[in-house]
C-alpha cells in the first residue's frame, strides 16, 4: 500500500487525493499537519482511521498524538516527521509530509506535497514545476517550500536545497540555519573562512577542532571542502539536537554553547565573576550587568536573520 502511485495519483486510503511529486525535501509544520489531518479525515471514500475533529472541524489532537494518528493512514514502513516551528508551508496551502523507510536521522526522504480534494493549485509555480506535477510547490531556485530562503541570494541553488533538507531533518526552520551560518561566516558562507582571532574555528559554523574530531574530520579538511560538501558535516554536527532546535537562539546555541539549548532567554552563559575568561572571550554583555545571557548572545544572529530576509538577500 503506497502513499501515491508513480503517476502522482493517490491510492488506498488516499483515493481521491491528488498527490504531486518532488525529489526535494521540506520540513513539516505542525499547522501543516493539522491541515493534512483535516483533509484526510474529510476525504470522501477514505478508508482507515479518522482523525477526531471538534465542532469547528479542527483536529482535537495535537503534537505527538496527532502525528501518531496520522501514522494510522500511512504504510507501516513510513512515518511523518513533524514539528517544524516555521509554518512556512502554510503560505502555499500545500501540506507536505515526508516519508522515511529506514534511517530517520539523515536518511533519504521522499517528500510528497498533498492537497485536499478540489484544492486550487498554488498561484505561483516556480521554475522547477512542470505540467505533469500540477500541485508540487517549487521555489524559483532550491526548494524551501515556496518561501524565499534567508540569505538565499548568497548561496547556490544546491546549497539552498541541502539546507532545506537538513532543516527538515532537524525539524527546524531553514532560515535559522542560514542566519547562523551567515553570522558565523560574516555573510560569506565560505567553507574555508577561519576565525581571525586565532581560535582555529573554520567554515560555515566555525567548527572547532574539538568539534570536528568526533565527526571524523579536521578543520583543515573542512576548509578544503566545497560549501555544499561541508553542509554534510553541519548536518552531522547538529543531528544530536534534532527536534530541539525550535527557535533561532536554540540553533545558535547548538553552535556556540550546546548546554543552553532549550533553556530560557535569561539563561546565563558566562558570568564575569565565575567565568572571567569565558566572559571576556565572548564580549556579548549588552546591558553590562556582568552576565551574558542566551538572549544577549543571540542578538546579533537575530539581526542577521532580519537582514537575510530582506528582499535583496532572500531567494
Amino acid at each position, binding site marked *: 500500500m503506497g502513499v501515491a502511485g508513480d503517476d502522482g495519483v493517490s491510492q488506498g486510503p488516499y483515493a481521491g487525493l491528488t498527490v504531486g511529486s518532488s525529489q526535494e525535501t521540506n520540513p513539516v509544520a505542525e499547522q501543516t499537519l493539522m491541515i493534512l489531518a483535516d483533509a484526510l479525515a474529510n476525504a470522501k471514500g477514505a478508508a482507515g482511521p479518522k482523525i477526531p475533529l471538534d465542532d469547528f472541524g479542527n483536529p482535537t489532537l495535537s503534537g505527538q498524538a496527532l502525528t501518531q494518528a496520522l501514522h494510522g493512514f500511512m504504510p507501516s514502513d513510513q512515518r511523518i516527521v513533524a514539528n517544524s516551528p516555521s509554518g512556512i508551508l502554510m503560505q502555499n496551502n500545500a501540506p507536505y509530509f515526508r516519508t522515511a523507510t529506514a534511517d530517520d*536521522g539523515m536518511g533519504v526522504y521522499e517528500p510528497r506535497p498533498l492537497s485536499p480534494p478540489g484544492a486550487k493549485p498554488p498561484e505561483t509555480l516556480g521554475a522547477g514545476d512542470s505540467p505533469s506535477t500540477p500541485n508540487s510547490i517549487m521555489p524559483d531556485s532550491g526548494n524551501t517550500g515556496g518561501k524565499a530562503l534567508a540569505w538565499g541570494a548568497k548561496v547556490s541553488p544546491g546549497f539552498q536545497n541541502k539546507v532545506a533538507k537538513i532543516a527538515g531533518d532537524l525539524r527546524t526552520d531553514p532560515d535559522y540555519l542560514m542566519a547562523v551560518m551567515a553570522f*558565523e561566516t560574516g555573510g560569506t558562507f565560505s567553507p574555508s573562512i577561519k*576565525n*581571525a*582571532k*586565532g*581560535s*582555529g*574555528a573554520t567554515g560555515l*559554523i*566555525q*567548527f*572547532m*577542532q*574539538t*568539534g570536528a*574530531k*568526533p*565527526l*571524523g574530520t579536521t578543520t583543515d579538511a573542512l576548509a578544503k571542502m566545497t560549501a555544499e560538501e561541508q553542509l554534510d558535516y553541519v548536518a*552531522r*554536527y547538529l543531528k*544530536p*539536537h534534532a527536534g530541539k532546535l525550535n527557535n533561532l537562539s536554540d540553533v545558535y*546555541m*547548538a*553552535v*556556540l*554553547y*550546546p*548546554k543552553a*539549548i532549550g533553556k530560557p532567554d535569561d539563561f546565563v*552563559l*558566562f558570568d564575569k565573576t565565575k*567565568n*572571567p*575568561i*569565558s566572559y*571576556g*572571550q*565572548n*564580549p*556579548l554583555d549588552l546591558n553590562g550587568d556582568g552576565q551574558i545571557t542566551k538572549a544577549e548572545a543571540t542578538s546579533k544572529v537575530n539581526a542577521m536573520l532580519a537582514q537575510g530576509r530582506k528582499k535583496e538577500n532572500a531567494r
Partner: protein
Amino acid sequence: MLDSFFRSARGACRIIPWVILILVCASARAQYPGEKDRYVQTVAGIVSITKSESAGIEGAYTVSLGAKKLLTTGDANPDKAFSDFPHIDVVRHFKRPITPFDEAILFQQYSYGNACNGSSFWVLGLNKDGSYRISKTLDFCGGPSAKVFDRKDGFVVYFPGGPPNIGKGYIPPQTWVFRNGTFVRVARK
C-alpha cells in the same frame, strides 16, 4: 505443549537481554558520536575516562582510578563538574615527578560548541602508593590554544592572549606554573 511453552520461554529469555541492550544503545544515539573510552596506565593504577550512558546534550563522562570514580562531568546533572564543557581531553601525562606527586595528568575540558577553543584545565596528581589529588581548576577559554612547557619539577601552562573570539578587545596573556600541587600565576613585569 508444555515443552513447547518452555522452549518459547527459554527463547524469550535469550532474546530479552539483547533487546534491552539495543534499547540502551538506541537511547544514547542522541549524543555526539565518536568519543571512545580512554585508559592511561599510571604509577597509581589505570586512569580511565568513560562515557556515561546518562543523557544530556553532550553526554557525561567519568574519570576513574582503578575502580574508584574520581570525577564525573556532564550537563545531565548541573551539580556535576564542568557541566557546560563536559568533554575531557588528556593534554599531557607526565611520567615523571611533578612535585609533590610521582606522576601527573593534565586534563582539559571542552565542549563541541565554539564559544571556547578549549576550556578549563585541571591536574590529577598520582603517587606510587595509589594515593591521588585533584587540583583546583584553571579557568580558560581560547582563543589561541594554550601551550604547555616542561619545568624541572613541574610544568607551565601559557595562555597566549589576543583579541576575543567575537567582537573587539584584548585578552592579555597569562602564565601559570604548576607548583607544589597547585596552579600559581606568574606576575607579568
